[in-house]
């Protein structure tokens, strides 16, 4: 074994983060590390990379015990890490980043020519040909990710840890990244792959290890395990009923649409589209990143102003030119990037939950403290938000719980039309299933939902109708039994057929 971890333990005040965890990594394998948030994945990785010191257990690299005290030491030993938020310097050039700390020198000065040549040569191994003299920040996240990998492999070269590397990449970029990872595997590196995306785990990994509550649950060859069993390992319970057959209950809709958007569009952003929303309906919006999914939501919620079109309900025309008007019209919107546009990190869970309601009432009509606490307690219980107290700053919660807080903010408003933009991105499997269950429940009471998602399974499981967006226009609509992963992929992938499948 290239890397062996034996009965590793790590304790923090109040929690046992890792208890006697064993983990093996062979040279030339991709080993996925899975678990819900708080299962101990990051602690394990931090013990490996020297960010934390372990309390007990041993780590063997090439059979020799190691005890890295810092990330620099771990790198020198051969263990390199690439994080989701790339830890490079965006204001230096690609070449400077690649050779940082080990710049080629000539007469004591940095030899820029040699530096660039070296960088180009390094990147050529990954089939990347870019201008290495430009600032790293000028390139896409995918390129930055690859530069980070190139640097980590160059410095370390035995073990490569990829921590959620694909969270902000689109499908094509993921493909590129995976081909590079496979190449590195052939070169004999041991690769630890941490991801929430189970599809990617099945596609890329040779073996997988599941952690739960700080203990190792299982290590198996990926091809010997199926998705359902994997999820039940991760959650510690059977999950069949949440993962499938959710759509059965939500068929009998009244025929008259609750809301109608006609020829809504904005030049250069998205072409005019029509959208009818029925009571209690779940409408999915599928498409690649940048296809116009989020833009559709932003137009409806008034984040961007529409240049054409109008919205109507039973009572006539409604205005939704900015978020305040949209909220007054009974809309709600949980944005894609909950850290940037969703939560107010330093305010408490309670204040975050009541924020929209309070804003709607106006500053002069404050909710009483008792009322606020009642609302907060209600939604903390209803959505199973894991927090030690309603007065804890929301920024200290895990991603899934933050998402639930933003959801609670809108549920407290009781909107008639709720737009959820990637509600399950970057959150663990358990919270994922719960959010899908929630969508199911709220729509039963008549709320309509527009669900934007990159995960086809999710759309198939939750939606009554799926609209496919490509190249900034709504190109197809699937409903009922026609909603399958294959059909959605087909509609997304079909160039030139746009005009034919329109408004199917």
């Amino acid at each position, binding site marked *: 074994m290239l890397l062996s971890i034996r009965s590793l333990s790590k304790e923090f005040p109040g929690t046992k983060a890792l208890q006697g965890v064993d983990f093996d990594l062979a040279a030339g394998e991709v080993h996925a590390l899975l678990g819900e948030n708080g299962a101990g994945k990051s602690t394990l990785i931090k013990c490996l990379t020297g960010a934390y010191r372990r309390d007990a257990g041993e780590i063997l690299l090439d059979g020799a015990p190691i005890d890295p005290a810092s990330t620099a030491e771990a790198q020198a030993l051969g263990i390199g890490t690439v994080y989701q938020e790339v830890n490079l310097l965006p204001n230096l050039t690609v070449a400077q980043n690649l050779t940082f700390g080990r710049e080629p020198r000539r007469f004591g000065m940095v030899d820029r020519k040699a530096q660039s040549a070296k960088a180009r040569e390094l990147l050529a191994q990954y089939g990347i040909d870019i201008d290495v003299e430009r600032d790293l920040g000028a390139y896409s996240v995918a390129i930055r990710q690859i530069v980070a990998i190139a640097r980590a492999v160059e410095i370390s070269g035995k073990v490569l840890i990829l921590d959620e590397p694909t969270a902000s990449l689109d499908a094509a970029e993921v493909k590129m990244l995976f081909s590079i990872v496979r190449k590195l595997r052939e070169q004999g590196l041991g690769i630890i792959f941490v991801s929430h995306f189970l599809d990617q785990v099945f596609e890329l990994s040779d073996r997988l290890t599941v952690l739960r509550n700080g203990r190792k649950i299982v290590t198996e060859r990926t091809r010997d395990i199926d998705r359902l069993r994997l999820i039940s390992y991760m959650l510690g319970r059977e999950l069949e009923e949440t993962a499938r057959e959710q759509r059965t209950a939500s068929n009998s809709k009244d025929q008259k649409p609750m809301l109608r958007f006609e020829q809504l569009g904005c030049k250069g952003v998205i072409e005019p589209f029509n959208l009818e929303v029925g009571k209690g309906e779940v409408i999915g919006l599928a498409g690649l990143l940048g296809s116009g999914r989020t833009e559709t939501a932003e137009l409806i919620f008034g984040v961007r102003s529409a240049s054409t079109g109008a919205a109507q309900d039973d009572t006539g025309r409604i205005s939704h030119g900015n978020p305040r008007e949209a909220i007054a019209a009974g809309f709600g919107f949980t944005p894609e990037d909950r850290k940037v*546009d969703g939560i107010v990190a330093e305010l408490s869970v309670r204040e975050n939950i009541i*924020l929209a309601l*309070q*804003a709607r009432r106006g500053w002069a009509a*404050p909710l009483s403290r008792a009322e606020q606490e009642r609302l907060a307690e209600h939604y903390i219980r209803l959505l199973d938000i894991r927090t030690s107290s309603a007065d804890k700053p929301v920024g200290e919660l895990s991603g899934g719980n933050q998402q639930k807080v933003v959801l609670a903010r809108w549920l407290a408003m009781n909107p008639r039309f709720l737009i959820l933009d990637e509600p399950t991105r970057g959150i663990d499997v358990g919270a994922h299933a719960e959010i899908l269950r929630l969508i199911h429940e709220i729509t039963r009471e008549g709320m309509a939902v527009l669900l934007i998602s990159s995960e086809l399974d999710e759309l198939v499981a939750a939606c009554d109708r799926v609209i496919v967006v490509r190249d900034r226009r709504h190109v197809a609509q699937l409903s009922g039994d026609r909603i399958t992963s294959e059909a959605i992929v087909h509609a997304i992938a079909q160039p030139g057929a746009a005009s034919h499948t329109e408004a199917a």
Partner: protein
Amino acid sequence: MGQTFRRITPQLVTLALVVLLVTVFFPNFFAIGFDGTRFVGPVVDVLKRSAPVALLGVGMTLVIATRGIDLSVGTVMAISGAVAAWAITSGYGLAGAVGLAIGAGLLAGLWNGCLVAIVGIQPIVATLILMTSGRGIAQLITEGRILTFSDPNLAFAGSGSVLGIPFPTILWIATAVVVALLMRRTALGMLIEATGINRAASALAGVNATVLLIAVYMASGFCASLAGIVATADIRGADANNAGLWLELDAILAVVIGGNSLLGGRFSIAGTMIGALIIQTINTGIMLSGFPSEYNLVIKAVLVLVILVLQSPNLAADWLFLKSLVKARRANVRSETP
């Protein structure tokens, strides 16, 4: 109430220490007398002279809570003072003079607020514009002279007293209490904090961030105009060049010493008020303790530095770390000697 008290405990301790330090050099600091019409003594003097910085601090706290800053308040003081002096000498009467001066402050705040919230200029740059140009405006109003007046009613705002307590003291305490109650008894405080922490998220949740920002800068202009009236009334004249000069910096300092973050978010007006008292106690204390006046600014700087270092969150982390080391060592010693 308990929560507020816990929040401002470090500031209260700091104030106590500064007072203690002053009494070491000037033992009569707490001596209070009554001269027939009013209380006199160093403490009364501190409470009176903190009025301008405390008033500016009320508005500045709100502006800083929205992740902004208002550099123009010192200048707005000069403008409002000039307007008040001009109005009273032109025969508009007390109400007219005060009303016009406050109106000028609100107008200045509206200008700043629009530049920040609508045009989208960085607050430090937006308010710098009025900070520099405003003194010119004040000079235009006073026509370049020191505009003196003798109206006793307006002068009362600077040197009068009610029940023996100086009017400026009553004004700043009342302003602070009213604004603090307005913030905490309505939802304004929370909405301002939400806007300061994350304007985008707040706007998406339906908070009217634009209006809120403008209102906050207008509140700052309002507070600055009150400070300007007090300063002008105190010397019975409007000095466009020197009224409120550099006071914006003292106001920011009061906010910071009060434990409010310059990055916006959670704020405490009570904290800022104690910050203003700390600054004025240092000022008065240095004068009373008889150091040569050329030392004043240096001593003040050293004291402020010490206070800020002691309040630094980095230092708190270091302190906890040291404490844990000592604890661990003790535990080791104990386990080795059973």
